[in-house]
């Protein structure tokens, strides 16, 4: 039985929905800016869910006021890394919170092979489960 027939990566917000349009992305960024969160763009080609630190694209955008500027940067990132995962993050720097408040994928590779489940026999009848992305078998930069 295939549980996720499309093989789409489901991390962050809106990942079960169809890809967001540019207007929808703008609206989300506008929401983040209205809360005073710092927006940044990150990319990776290793979709493993434990890979939490993606590479940052460009500079962090602390002092921007309008979503158009950030969308411009998103499009720049898409042009540079057309076959990478790209996400937009919003960081809430309120003292005591200091964590990402939003994170959603804005670009994904055309072909997402998905993940394979591996089992390892441990002591007794213990079984350790692990999974890895089929794409990650290839070296970095050639994965998609």
């Amino acid at each position, binding site marked *: 039985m295939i549980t996720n027939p499309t093989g789409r990566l489901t991390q962050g917000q809106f990942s079960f929905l169809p890809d967001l349009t540019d207007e929808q992305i703008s609206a989300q960024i506008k929401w983040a800016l209205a809360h005073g969160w710092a927006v940044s763009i990150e990319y990776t080609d290793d979709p493993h869910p434990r890979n939490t630190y993606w590479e940052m694209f460009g500079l962090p955008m602390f002092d*921007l*006021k*309008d*979503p*158009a*500027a*950030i969308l411009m*940067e998103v499009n720049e990132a898409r042009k540079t890394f057309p076959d990478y995962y790209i996400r937009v993050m919003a960081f809430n720097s309120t003292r005591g919170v200091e964590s990402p408040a939003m994170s959603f994928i804005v670009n994904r590779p055309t072909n997402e092979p998905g993940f394979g489940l591996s089992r390892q026999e441990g002591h007794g009848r213990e079984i350790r489960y692990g999974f890895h992305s089929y794409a990650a078998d290839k070296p970095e930069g050639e994965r998609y």
Partner: protein
Amino acid sequence: MSDTENKPSELNEIDIDAVYRESEIQDVLDRLDAELIGLVPVKTRIREIAALLLVDKLRRQLDLTAGNPSMHMSFTGNPGTGKTTVAMRMADILHRLGYVRQGHLVAVTRDDLVGQYIGHTAPKTREVLKKAMGGVLFIDEAYYLYKPENERDYGAESIEILLQVMENQRDDLVVILAGYKDRMDKFFESNPGMSSRIAHHIDFPNYNPPELVQIAKLMLAESSYRMSDEAEGVFAQYVVKRMEMPNFANARSIRNALDRARLRQANRLFNSRGRMLTKADLMTIEADDFMKSRIFSDGVDESAQDGE
């Protein structure tokens, strides 16, 4: 089709007054009239722009095409004629008319746009443009961007990026260039692309003496000062004399003159120790405070000397 009945037809009437009130333009224009003395051509142009944007808004309501008009501007005029002040207002006006989304003003000069080594300029300019998006980018003394005598100057690169964004993303930001008239004319001559992308070339006229006196009164009122009647007469003479001096910078010279008058007033009050001062004493600038200016004695004003 069912949606034809929802669409307003040519018979539909639109209440222009309602849209007008809603946008609170009158409020902005009134404030413009009250707080900016003179500058008739500038105010006329702002009124025209406001009208155009309002009509476009109405057209859009009736599903008529209303292409976003280009709103890039160039402000030319002598020093101290209020270019920066009007640019600040412009951001507010365009925001109220719904032309720009955030209505903030980012004021920059050449230093903020042009980098120091190869490959530094483009990211620097783009950073500034991103910061200004949704608002107004005000480039003061824009002619410094282009230095024809040095062909390896990076200013041209900055202009190229500016032009590209001014053309492709005119919904996202408005660029206002400002500078002295003659130099800006030369700048536009050597950058015809820039000139043609700017829809509004607004020239700021010099102030005449009565306007300058009015400006002075407004400036004093802002900081809770006032002139005595006698002082006003003297100040009017001062203005006429000062205008003939070199380095006259319109309202800026007036501000400096007032600052010096306040200095003398403070000194005069300080020297009159021994008697009780009233609130009116602290507020009033007397004729004497202007008379002591060197412009009346040997015809040289302090400001003309210190190269202001």
